[in-house]
């Protein structure tokens, strides 16, 4: 479940496209579910979600909700951005590894001075004016140390 909501200013600088297939994912983000696909033949879970299984090339996949928790494998702070993102600089992006053995690249909505490798994070919904996107925030309880 997506517990965190982060208000964002303006529209999404580069809105994702939605296909008949990925609609399930994006609708889920809007509705508070963080989901991806798992192969019902070989059990491989993959992210981003895919209509075919990249492990066995089968076409039998099903959606499942994932924890949305993970730890930062690495991160960076972007000072020089594409012009469509310039108004959001500096912003942090990172690589998050999850307990489902997924690796996800995403925006990190975490103060720069707190960012560190191995920090626990949780998925959040970035609430832009024209629609949502996903990112990660510092996991609750982590900030107390």
């Amino acid at each position, binding site marked *: 479940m997506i517990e965190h909501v982060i208000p964002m200013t303006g529209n999404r600088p580069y809105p994702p496209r939605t296909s008949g297939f990925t609609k399930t994912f994006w609708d889920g983000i809007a509705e508070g579910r963080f989901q991806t696909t798992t192969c019902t033949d070989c059990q491989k879970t993959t992210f981003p979600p895919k209509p075919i299984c990249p492990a066995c090339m089968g076409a039998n996949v099903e959606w499942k909700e994932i924890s949305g928790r993970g730890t930062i*494998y690495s991160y960076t702070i972007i000072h020089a951005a594409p012009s469509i993102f310039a108004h959001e600089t500096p912003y942090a992006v990172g690589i998050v590894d999850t307990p489902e053995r997924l690796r996800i690249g995403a925006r990190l909505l975490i103060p720069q001075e707190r960012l560190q490798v191995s920090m626990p994070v949780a998925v959040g919904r970035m609430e832009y004016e024209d629609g949502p996107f996903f990112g990660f925030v510092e996991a609750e309880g982590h900030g107390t140390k």
Partner: protein
Amino acid sequence: MNEVTLLAASAVPVGKIQSRPEAPDQILEHELLSEVVRQSLAQANVSKTEVGAMIFAEPHIYTKQKYFATFMAGYLGMKCEGAVMEILGNGMTGGLVFDRAVDEVRLGRTEVALALGVNLETAVPATEHMNYTMRATGDVDFQAPAGFTPISWYAMDAVRYMHETGATREQISSVAVKNRKHAMLNPLAQFRKPMTIEDVLASKPIVHPLSLLDVPPRSDGAVCLVLASRRVAEQSGQPYVVLRGRGSYHEGVHQIADAPADMIAFDAARRAGKALYDDAGLTPDQIDIAEVYAPCTIVEILVAEALGLLEKGKGAEQTEAGETTLGGRIPINTSGGCQSRGHPARLTPLYNALELYQQLTSQAGPRQVDGARIGLMCCELGNYNAALTHVLETA
């Protein structure tokens, strides 16, 4: 199959060449490249009728003349029994161009093939250019909307490397200082003024922890290599180098895997390196010089480690200690590398081949590595998710 040689290599100095749209006198892509082709054929001492294939790096979208390869074949009146084509593949573009030109000779489709291209982009602001390139270095629907930039992935390599090895920012940035020293001796280099580690550290932050002088500048270029059969090379009376081996590997990943993995091992480079050493019958310690595709300082360290030229986890420290500097144990990027020689992205591997040609034929002037006989080059896709390696040897 035919043995293949690199018989000539010409290029314009890397720098800002592209004209702004409003400039009254425009730099035309075909005029720029035609002169480089003319020079390379003169250098190779082969006539244009011997050329039987032209493999091009596809120019950027900003280049007005489309289907540039066949246009150029017409402009130069170049009749070819082998391929005339354009190739695209990120930073590997120039490497794939080289590889395919080699194959045309290897397969006997021609005795002379050109590997060439023009890269014009500097009149387009970086912030605009990135609106396009961010769609190349990530999933456009799941990653681009987060704001990843092409070099942000390398920056994350740096953060992870520092975390795992304890390497310092100064050690990583020593790559840029070393490369500037080399570029000062290279007439084709874009940046040739002296530069210190303090300059790098004090430069504008771009993608933490990398600053302006850790990352590639915007660069234009034009280059033409002449690949030839051993027979043509021998008859030319000109100096040449021989292709001794190659390796290639794509790990089936774009930027990051969909599962946790060691991102900074550059496993594709390790495997392409192993394939290269096996093909050439060499070990890493037999390599005299290396030109590696490394847009950012950290990348040079990681690829050199993956290729066995530097010790795993110690590459930054060894670079700071001068092991990869001219005169050091294994000089890397004697051209000046992406940071100082410059980075006309789709041509960088071809400029790297040119540097090996000059070094291995003892034409590198003040930056000549004494006794350099065996040179390695390597280029990549994504965050070194794929690598293509070649080794060239003095004839």
